């Protein structure tokens, strides 16, 4: 059980800055997910917490104690690697007990812990096998078991599900969440998959180009992204971005997307957006907030006609693609709404969920 604190942590490879002065507080028992595209510095950050990379600047503290120069073996953290990194010459039991044997735990204690972890992960039958006799999912369980038996202060996961097929990935995701709810160990988890980040995390840390873009609970990030990057990265299919102009319209404001399409900004947001009036901005809206226009239209709904270009039925919903002044836009409609390729359709934008983004700073207004 431990808190992990990063203060102005910097990592440089020669002159390239992989991680630039990040600050992060991870609370005891918290499940924090670092997410971002490849090369954003998330794995480097994790490896610095682990002690596998030395840090160029700043400090990392565990329970208030600075561990910058403490070797990995003395940090009492356990790590699960993307390619499992099981010791190929040892059985599952030996793999899981390796760390405990190095620390000269008594045999009975090792036996007890391994059996307990094997029970949690449902791998009791595999204890005598070698890693090469296991499937990918089983190997991943063993790798987790090896971490659990140590009963460490912190769990570190480095893209643990990336090598699994889609179905297994979903299963193991649930498994990881279940294990965390059981053992309640502080966890730092790195992934490039925003779905994993959303489903697992107590708090998500979105990283980009070595910096933290935003930290927050999954739903908060989804509904209130701070930057265009976060808005585009979180959520699938991604948020639509359209160039727009914010125009004065009497007391209110209008968002003009094209010559023919303009929406009135909801009254409660006018105050917030007024300083940007007259500027060229980016209008952001998620696909589920672009639906077919219904007859009982609620407040702050703007309707417009769209020429449907592509229809993707998903079963429970249907994705439709159309263009607004040259930019492709995705909407999410009822499968019974009768979308047809080539036909025009009345669509509605739910403006309560719109975002306006400043082009220069990339920040959401």
């Amino acid at each position, binding site marked *: 059980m431990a808190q992990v604190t990063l203060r102005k942590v910097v990592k440089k490879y020669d002159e390239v800055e992989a991680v630039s002065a990040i600050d992060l507080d991870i609370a005891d028992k918290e499940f924090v997910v670092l997410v971002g595209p490849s090369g954003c510095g998330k794995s480097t950050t994790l490896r610095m917490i*682990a*002690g*596998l990379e030395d840090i160029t600047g700043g400090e990392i503290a565990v329970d208030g104690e600075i561990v910058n120069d403490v*070797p*990995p*073996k003395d940090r009492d*953290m*356990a*790590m699960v*690697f*993307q*390619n499992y*990194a*099981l*010791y*190929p*010459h040892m059985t599952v039991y030996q793999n899981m007990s*390796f*760390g405990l044997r*190095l*620390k000269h735990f008594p045999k009975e204690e090792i036996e007890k812990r391994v059996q307990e972890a094997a029970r949690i992960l449902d791998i009791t039958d595999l204890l005598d096998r*070698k*890693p*090469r*006799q*296991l*499937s*990918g999912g089983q190997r991943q369980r063993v790798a987790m078991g*090896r971490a659990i038996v*140590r009963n460490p202060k912190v769990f*570190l996961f480095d893209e643990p599900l990336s090598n699994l097929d889609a179905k297994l990935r979903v299963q193991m995701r649930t498994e990881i969440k279940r294990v965390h709810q059981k053992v309640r160990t502080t966890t730092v988890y790195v992934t490039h998959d925003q779905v994993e980040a959303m489903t697992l995390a107590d708090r998500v840390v979105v990283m980009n180009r070595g910096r933290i873009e935003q930290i927050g609970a999954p739903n908060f990030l989804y509904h209130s992204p701070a930057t265009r990057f976060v808005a585009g990265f979180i959520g699938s299919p991604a948020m639509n971005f359209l160039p727009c102009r914010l125009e004065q319209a009497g007391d209110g404001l209008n968002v003009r997307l094209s010559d023919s399409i303009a929406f009135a900004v909801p009254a409660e947001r006018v105050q917030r957006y007024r300083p940007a009036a007259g500027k060229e901005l980016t209008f952001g809206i998620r696909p589920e907030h672009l639906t077919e226009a219904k007859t009982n239209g609620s407040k702050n709904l703007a309707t417009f006609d769209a020429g449907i270009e592509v229809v993707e039925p998903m079963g429970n919903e249907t994705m439709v693609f159309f263009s607004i002044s040259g930019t492709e836009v995705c909407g999410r409609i009822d499968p019974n709404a009768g979308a047809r390729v080539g036909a025009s359709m009345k669509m509605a934008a739910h403006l309560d969920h719109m975002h306006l983004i400043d082009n220069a700073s990339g920040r959401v207004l």
Partner: protein
Amino acid sequence: MTAATVVMDKSAPTRPRYGSMSRDRRWALRWSYFFLVLFAIFFLTPPLYMFITSLKTSAEISAATNPWWVYHPSLTNYIELLTSSTYIIFFRNSAIVSIFVVCITMIISVPAAFALARMKFWGSAVLATGVFLTYLIPDTLLFIPLFKMFAVFNEWTDIQLINKWWVLLIVYPTLTVPFCTWIMIGYFASIPKELDEAALMDGANYRQILFKIFIPVALPGLIAATIFAFTVSWAQFLYPLAFTTSPDQLVLPVGIITTLIKGDVFNWGQIMTGALLGAAPPLIIYAFLMDYYIAGLTAGATKG
């Protein structure tokens, strides 16, 4: 391949020309067997000739009969050699030298390879290449400066290094250590980095990573290096010829040549017998380790 195409052209001129996997395979097998047999004959003839000659008496060897046939087989050569104390001494010297050289080589090479493969330090890459370049210098060039060094050492310290069998323990590793280190660097480098990182996280220090992870995982490489070191020291001829002279200090290859050739009398029967018996230990070691070696190579090679 060309042969197969020619056959197809004749048989089906009008049909589209499909290849035939079974025919291709048959041809590939024919060629393989042809070359296998060729090489087998080429490489097995000398030992066979040695074996035939070893069963002959000196009189029969010098007689003008068919050299590939034994008319009066006799085991005298074997009995004489195995009861002669000098041959036993050569054999013992060779065994002691080879076993010690293998041990010394492994004790130096394995940690050196581990350090060069894993602990990135200033100049480690240059050093790794340097190790291999050392191996490229032929021993025919090295023995003269080595000889000179020993002479100088003798002048300074009065310790005589020439004509002592144990000096070979210092000399042979100049051949075996660079190559074995190079082999082991390759094997260690092929072990995924995550494996030592996992061990680091599990609380292992470098010594434990080497002994508990790297050596067991790279065991096939270790065995390959062992076989190499043993073969080199067992078969080495030039160094013992240069550095040892008195019969009780000689090793097998030099011993056979120097004691069984008296002036211009070549005792061919015993030379052949001695060489044949001398070849036995490496053969036995290969036979034992090869199974293990191949098992290690193929185990876990495929991703499940």
